[in-house]
């Protein structure tokens, strides 16, 4: 084996094409839609798409981290709901509170919800699917009984809170900026920091992670707290963007979030995929739904297309895995 032949990292190339695939799909979709309706690429349309992506991308980031550890968090939709309702109620009762307090409270509510998920998964030794399915109903139930049929309307909220969704920093909306920071920072931690690699290791082989002395409990709780906190943050953004919040806010969101993560190339069995891939997945799903609207395609098709994308993503993972196995075997036999 020559040194140069050894340097070819097959996984990296293929992984690259995995995220590249999403970018290409996105480009093709935008191109096709724009040809049919040039307004699709107008400033307002781009802005809407990015704003709609922001909330989904924030939640997909937390979800991706949890899925990478071979778990899942189905409660994020309900956490968004409880956080949105809590923050909206707080802001209507105390209109003087600055935005940063709203954000911190949202994060805290979500983190508490995530902590409960993590504790039940780790110490209750119950699969995450079951735990978070349970808390999905639980958190939603709490929100319903708290709201008691009432809702917080936009006119009850202070203007600085509502303006936050539309305000810019150097032309970039705050929502988009927050999503970018969340996706970027988390991607960086997952890629370049020890704790990130440990999370990948835990998903790749839970037994080996225990034997390697990785602080599995701490990391797992951390992953669930992150997912919860980001869902809580998404709740604040949701309340600021839509103004009207009732107990059903974010109902069914968890499926969009999981879909974004899977389409974004995070393996459902953990251990591989990237956070920024999940962010791209969120963008792709958002652009698809707005493109279908622009193209005047029945919106019922949207669900079928998202479903097809999920299946395609998983098939692509299988295909890549088989191809890696084959290329490695070939390399070994010549080595």
């Amino acid at each position, binding site marked *: 084996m020559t040194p140069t032949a050894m340097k070819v990292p097959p996984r990296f190339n293929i992984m690259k094409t995995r995220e590249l695939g999403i970018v290409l799909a996105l480009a093709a979709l935008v191109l096709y839609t724009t040809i049919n309706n040039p307004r699709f690429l107008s400033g307002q349309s781009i802005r809407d798409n990015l704003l709609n992506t922001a909330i989904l991308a924030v939640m997909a980031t937390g979800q991706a981290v949890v899925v990478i550890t071979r778990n899942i968090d189905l409660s994020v939709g309900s956490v968004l709901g409880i956080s949105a309702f809590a923050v909206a109620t707080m802001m209507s009762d105390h209109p003087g509170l600055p935005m940063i307090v709203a954000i911190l409270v949202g994060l805290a509510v979500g983190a508490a919800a995530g902590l409960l998920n993590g504790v039940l998964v780790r110490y209750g030794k119950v699969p995450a699917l079951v735990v978070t399915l349970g808390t999905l109903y639980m958190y939603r139930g709490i929100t319903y009984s708290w709201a008691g049929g009432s809702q917080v309307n936009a006119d009850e909220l202070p203007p600085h809170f509502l303006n936050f969704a539309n305000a810019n920093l150097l032309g970039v909306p705050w929502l988009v900026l927050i999503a970018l920071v969340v996706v970027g920072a988390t991607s960086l931690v997952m890629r370049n*920091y020890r704790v990130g690699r440990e999370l990948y290791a835990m998903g*790749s082989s839970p037994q080996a992670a225990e034997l390697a002395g990785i602080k599995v409990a701490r990391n797992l709780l951390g992953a669930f707290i992150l997912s919860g906190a980001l869902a809580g943050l998404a709740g604040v953004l949701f309340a600021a963007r839509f103004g009207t919040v009732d107990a059903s806010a974010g109902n069914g969101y968890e499926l969009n979030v999981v879909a974004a993560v899977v389409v974004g190339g995070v*393996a459902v069995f953990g251990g591989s995929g990237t956070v920024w891939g999940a962010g791209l997945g969120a963008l792709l799903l958002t652009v698809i739904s707005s493109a279908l609207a622009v193209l005047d395609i029945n919106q019922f098709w949207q669900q079928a297309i998202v479903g097809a994308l999920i299946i395609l993503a998983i098939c692509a993972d299988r295909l890549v895995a088989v191809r890696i196995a084959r290329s490695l075997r070939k390399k*070994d036999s010549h080595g």
Partner: protein
Amino acid sequence: MAEASALLEVQDVTKSFGAVAAVQGVSFPLFGGEAHALVGENGAGKSTIVKMLAGVHQPDTGTLRLAGNDVTFAGPADAKAAGIAVIYQEPTLFPDLSVAENIAMGNQPLTRLRQIDRKAMHATAERLFRRLGVHLDPTRPARGLSIADQQLVEIAKALSSEARVLIMDEPTAALSAVEVARLFAVVRSLRDEGAAILFISHRFEEITELCQRVTIMRDGKHVATELVADLTVDDMIRRMVGRDLSALFPKQTVEPGEVMLEVDGLTREGVFRDVSFSVRAGEIVALAGLVGAGRSEVMQAVFGVDPYDSGTVRFQGKRLKPGSPRAAMAAGIALVPEDRRQQGLIMELSIERNVTLPRARKLARLGLLFGGAEREAALTWTQKLQTKLGSLSDAVGTLSGGNQQKVVLAKWLATGPQLLIVDEPTRGIDVGTKAEVHRLMSSLAADGLAVVMVSSELPEVLGMADRIVVLREGRVAAELTRAEATEESVMYAAMGQEVAA
């Protein structure tokens, strides 16, 4: 040698799992600069000792003393921090992560921003591989590595932590002679630098070669701790088993019958080339050679698990359909794979389910499986093989390594094959069980079964085989009869010029 103070001391430790006492009152010291062997039959409690030292299990009573101080390890992280590195029997790698990341996990080199320094990480991995004399790409994922390569990564991982105590639970089981020699050279240099080594192996020649002191265990109890120089191998075996082992290789001479299997010019590009041999009824043919010579791959192609590019396989005169294990099974061929955890058994299923799996169709009535027929078939074969088990409905994963191997054998013997292919039949099992497996193979051959055995253990090859086909780099290097075969002649053929040089 500093006899005065032990680096690590196991003092009167006891550990029970439920009602089963795995380890009872075992004590022994590990000295710096010394390799210490831990021997015992499978189920003697060696792995439990390892897991206690690794912090996976905590002793019920008794203490561990590190450099004279009592220590308790709450988890593997504590043991690691105390400078104890463990190479487990079953590789514990992260398949999705790169080889370099696997090695560095937990103590990755960091840049000033506390990020992982990938360049340094890859350099470390390359340095360790150079020291071990292996060619592995540090950037490739661990998924898809052969068992031997996985074991080498494990070894590199243990070396990277610069441990004061290195514990190796059968590190050589999957390695070839050359790789073992390299590993021993590295272990010796670590030992001479003052590290304490705990070495577990079923190969006595390795123990006498590497170790100064040996602790013998039987049924969870401590039998003796002595200097290796004071003991003969026979002494060790006798104390381990508690009885004399009359013959380790009870080969019965059999008049070979008609030709059962004919392999002619079998080729798979890049793996093996032009492999030809035949096997008669009642004969045991061994495929010998170094790890990576293509032995298992040839037999997998014969059985139809892997494809081949050219050549023919005939069984009882009829050409066997390539690439179809089902056809091979229908013709009367059984294959007992090397990696029993991954390929041979379904760990979560019960013993009886595992035994009857290949025959499930035949046992089914109206397409449904009823417990009775299954249990009966499983009972017959597990009893014939003297498998030690609690209940047939227990999960296979709860059995010890040797007994798992017996279940794999039972599974395939229950199909009533005419040709049995066994890949490393006694890898990782103790001498007592080994002798039983050998006796069984011998008596099966005497009953007219044709046996092909792939084995890395020379004594086994020489002791059991009627004929030996030696492969080197995917080609037949020599075919030796029982009379011609000696340790030298087989190794010479397997390694080619390397021995002469």
